[in-house]
């Protein structure tokens, strides 16, 4: 494999890994606060739809992003209401949110645009444009570093850079601030946080809201960055892959970066090669597509290090009376 091919694959790894990274960090905040979220898929989907719809109507991608955030936040509000206020089953709530998004996006899409659930294609300012970083063109001719800088690091859309910037930011927020400490504590031992006079409900709602914002960005990126417009079921299981990456990363931000890029790389390779030959063993494309899930099961099985979820995850908090 030569350098240009490698760079192309890595470049598409970044583009495909970015939405996974955003969704994975979203799940990280929610699950670290003890709220399981299998509704990442639905939140992304609703954000993708509304961002594309609003971006098309207004012609502004940033208004689209804003609408996407609102859509995902509304889904988050349902999840919060069900799992925090009414102490319902978080997994069932997540399942409901996925179906709600899957149905509503098509229903509204058909009503607004009559294109069978698609939005019209986005053009011009309604889409994210690649950003060329400073000196990328000038340095292009420099051997090795030039192409890497020009092809790989420069030339992505804004939300890709946002996604990468969010990794250290999430780490800082979770491990270096009081809010982060409380958020992690709420996911491990909510009673202790309550005893310290901090509102468990408040922290959990904040975490669920952050989760909504990040899935909103992920969805907006899918519809207005990675592709030009919304199509039915366009998240295509990415919410679940992000969930898998979260387990792979053992609920930590830097590892989330590694896991999502690995899964992005698998997707990029599967897109590029219909069949692979690895040391004489043919690997069918279906195997490449299933690999993230298989890897996650292996990790979950605890054969390669143990993935231990936050201890209070999935349990509604009932204040002592």
């Amino acid at each position, binding site marked *: 494999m030569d350098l240009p091919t490698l760079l192309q694959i890595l470049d598409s790894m970044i583009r495909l890994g970015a939405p996974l990274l955003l969704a994975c960090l979203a799940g990280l905040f929610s699950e670290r606060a003890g709220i399981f979220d299998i509704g990442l898929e639905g939140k992304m989907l609703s954000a993708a739809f509304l961002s594309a719809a609003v971006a098309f109507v207004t012609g502004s991608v940033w208004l689209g992003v804003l609408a996407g955030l609102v859509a995902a936040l509304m889904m988050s509000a349902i999840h919060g209401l069900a799992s925090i206020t009414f102490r319902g089953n978080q997994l069932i709530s997540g399942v409901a949110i996925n179906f709600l998004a899957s149905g*509503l996006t098509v*229903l509204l899409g058909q009503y607004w645009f009559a294109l069978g659930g698609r939005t019209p294609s986005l053009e011009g300012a309604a889409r994210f444009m690649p950003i060329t970083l400073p000196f990328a063109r000038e340095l292009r001719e420099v051997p090795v570093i030039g192409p890497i800088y020009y092809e790989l690091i420069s030339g992505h859309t804004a939300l890709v850079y946002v996604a990468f910037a969010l990794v250290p930011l999430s780490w800082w927020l979770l491990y270096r601030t009081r809010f982060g400490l409380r958020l992690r504590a709420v996911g491990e031992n909510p009673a202790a946080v309550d005893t310290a006079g901090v509102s468990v409900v408040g922290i959990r709602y904040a975490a669920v809201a952050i989760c909504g914002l990040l899935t909103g960005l992920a969805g907006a990126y899918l519809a207005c960055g990675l592709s030009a417009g919304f199509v039915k079921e366009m998240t295509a299981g990415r919410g*679940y892959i992000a969930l898998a990456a979260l387990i792979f990363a053992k609920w930590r931000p830097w590892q989330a970066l590694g896991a999502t890029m690995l899964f992005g790389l698998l997707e990029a390779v599967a897109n590029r090669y219909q069949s692979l030959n690895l040391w004489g063993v043919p690997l*069918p494309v*279906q195997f490449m597509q299933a690999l993230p899930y298989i890897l996650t099961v292996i990790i979950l099985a*605890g054969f390669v290090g143990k993935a231990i979820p936050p201890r209070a995850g999935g349990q509604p908090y009932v204040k002592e009376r």
Partner: protein
Amino acid sequence: MDRMPGWADALLVPLISLLVAFAISSLVILAIGENPWEAMKLMVTGALGSSYGWGYTLYYATNFIFTGLAVSVAFHAGLFNIGGEGQATLGGLGVALACLFVPWPHWSLALIGAAAMGAAFGALWAALPAWLQARRGSHIVITTIMFNFIAASLLNYVLVNVLRPTGSMDPATARFPAGTNLPGIGDMLTAIGIPFARTTPANISLFVAIGACILVWALIWRTRLGYEIRAFGKSEKAAVYAGISPVRITMLAMLISGALAGLMAINNVMGEAERLVLNSVEGAGFIGIAVALMGRSHPFGVLLAALLFGFLYQGGAELALWTSIPRELITVIQALVILFTGALDNMVRQPVEALFLRARKGAK
């Protein structure tokens, strides 16, 4: 006693939840500029107004009975089997293998053989997540989700590379031999003198599904294993104290659950399509979750809920045919039913409970 009566818990609360879900669905229909009353009328005539409509309603209901029972059995053991989709996919593979490679002399024998293979494949696909949950503590919800995706990829591979007849472009198996074709409900009813449309996919699997309801009821409430499953589901610690092995119950409950999901394939693969195609399950595994929640994990409740969803499915198809409301309306209704009967259960339950308690206090 600060609890409400049993009938309110088992009937009133789900009924109110259902009404809330339907009320919101009506608002959704209003919001997209259609008339909910007209839509409802169209759905009722489309799904229940003719024997043709009933045939489809019953066909869909048969699928949902199997997957609903699958989710219910796991629920009784305190396990959330979200993998009905994958287990039913693998069940389809089992049924297809049984139909394609065994020369069955009669459809009844083929049905028994295919049912056994479907159930075995479904159970097999549930076995690994169950074992991982029981032995390694891996969360069964996540592993069964992953297994849904792995099943889809596996089936894709098998159909494209192994079972596809040479020369065919379609990722599907060959047609099953005629000896494996199941009698339709229409044929059976017409034979005994009741006129019924003969072109519908409803088939004898419906009776297998009803039989499965009775068997599951007997298993859960009339056998020692059922008692152990329920005890384990209510309190794992108490069950362990009573000498019930968590590994054994987790494995058995999930194997039964997977087998029930796999059994679905005798209806959709053997009874309807008569060959195995990609995505033959069409989301029925997930609808099983809604059906089990609405039916309170009781086989009779599952039967009723499956009929309701069968009606919604066929009615939704009719709606999409005659109006501009897309089929996805059903997905929205399904989501709202799951939300209100499942996750937001307390929102409905608490006010009802408070009302009962106040009424009781007033009576004293």
